């Protein structure tokens, strides 16, 4: 029998599988991104388009839209693998299950979180953010989207066994996401106001570290229960 694959390589193999699958189904993955763009563009249309007013609501609009878009994307994380039995095969592959789920979550972030960060300058500009604020907005969204995808993995895993999981998923994830929302929106507001944004960014970074270390374990436990 040939040697077992190193766990790192196993994770990368799973990530490349998910990325390849996503390429075949680009429509699925673009929807949350388009949702984010549409919602952020609606704000200037619905509100008084005066620049100072828009700048006041920009952080909130960006972050609430980002949060809701990440919730929409959760459906794509584990559900299909659960339905076709792939998740079961992953659970008995002999590779640490939490690690494989983490790899899936990272692939999911590359497909839904990162694109959102990349279009954020557009959305932020539409909401009246000055060009000087864009790097700060990007940094905050980068960290925030990482934290949200980890939290989302827990919510998606907990609701796997349920038929209509969307609302329950939101009810589970949204309260957990409150700290991310608070510090993310704060960092964005400070960036738009041209003030130093390090403190909220540090806290966001701490949330990312916490999520990256603990969320895969929680998600793995939850998925195992759903497989029973």
């Amino acid at each position, binding site marked *: *029998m040939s040697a077992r*694959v190193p766990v790192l390589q196993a994770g990368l193999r799973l990530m490349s599988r998910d990325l390849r699958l996503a390429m075949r189904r680009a429509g699925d993955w673009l929807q949350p991104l388009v949702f984010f763009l549409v919602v952020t563009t609606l704000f200037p249309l619905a509100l008084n388009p005066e620049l100072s007013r828009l700048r006041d609501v920009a952080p909130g609009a960006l972050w609430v839209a980002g949060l809701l878009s990440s919730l929409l994307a959760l459906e794509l994380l584990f559900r299909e693998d659960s339905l076709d*039995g792939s998740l079961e095969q992953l659970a008995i*592959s002999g*590779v640490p299950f939490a690690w494989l789920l983490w790899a899936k979550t990272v692939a999911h972030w590359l497909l839904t979180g990162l694109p959102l960060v990349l279009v954020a300058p557009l959305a932020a500009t539409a909401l009246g953010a000055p060009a000087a604020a864009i790097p700060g907005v990007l940094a905050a969204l980068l960290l925030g989207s990482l934290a949200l995808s980890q939290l989302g993995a827990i919510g998606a895993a907990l609701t796997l066994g349920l038929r209509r999981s969307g609302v329950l998923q939101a009810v589970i994830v949204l309260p957990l996401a409150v700290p991310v929302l608070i510090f993310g929106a704060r960092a964005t507001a400070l960036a738009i106001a041209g003030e130093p944004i390090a403190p909220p960014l540090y806290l966001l970074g701490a949330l990312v570290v916490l999520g990256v270390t603990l969320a895969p374990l929680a998600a793995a436990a939850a998925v195992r229960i759903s497989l029973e």
Partner: protein
Amino acid sequence: MTTPSRPPHLAGHDLHLWRGDRAVFSGIGFEVAAGVCLQVTGPNGAGKTSLLRALCGLLPLERGRVQWRGAEVHADLGAFHAELAYLGHDIGLKSDLTAVENLYYEVGLRRRVDRAAATAALEQVGLGPAMHQDIRHMSAGQKRRVAFARVLLCACPLWILDEPTSNLDAAGQALIGTLLAAHLRAGGVAVVATHQALPLPAESLRSLVLG
């Protein structure tokens, strides 16, 4: 992988499984040594699939011990899973990938495989040129063959197969029998839930009737 000290041997002692307040089975016991296949039969709903999933460690047992090579499987599930190939009801193939890609990605988590090895395994199950089709364009029987090719490619000493011949034509059923016999001759262990008679010599077949 370190060379296992003991020969392949799967045993279950006094297995009890409950679903809610209903006992699916209780007091089940068996032993299968290298080169032997345990055929699990029983009426629908007797708990064949549950037993197989419990052996894989996917379902928690109420009571009882499962031993592989003489050691408790729950002591090191990772090591046990590395030696286990499971074919379940849900075949676990991605419908948007071709058969070759499916094997390449999935078995690639367990051991080093390249596309040539995946192709060879698919040829063994008689899939032919269909192996470059997306899974979703395949018939149920073809999907079953791909799933069986995955079991072959895993090169694991323990096979746990749930209705491996369902949806297969006569040639396919015979093929599975041949491949299973070859696995046993090579010193493998198999647990198979099926109603079909397995074309195996009597000395390498044990029977477990549930329900």
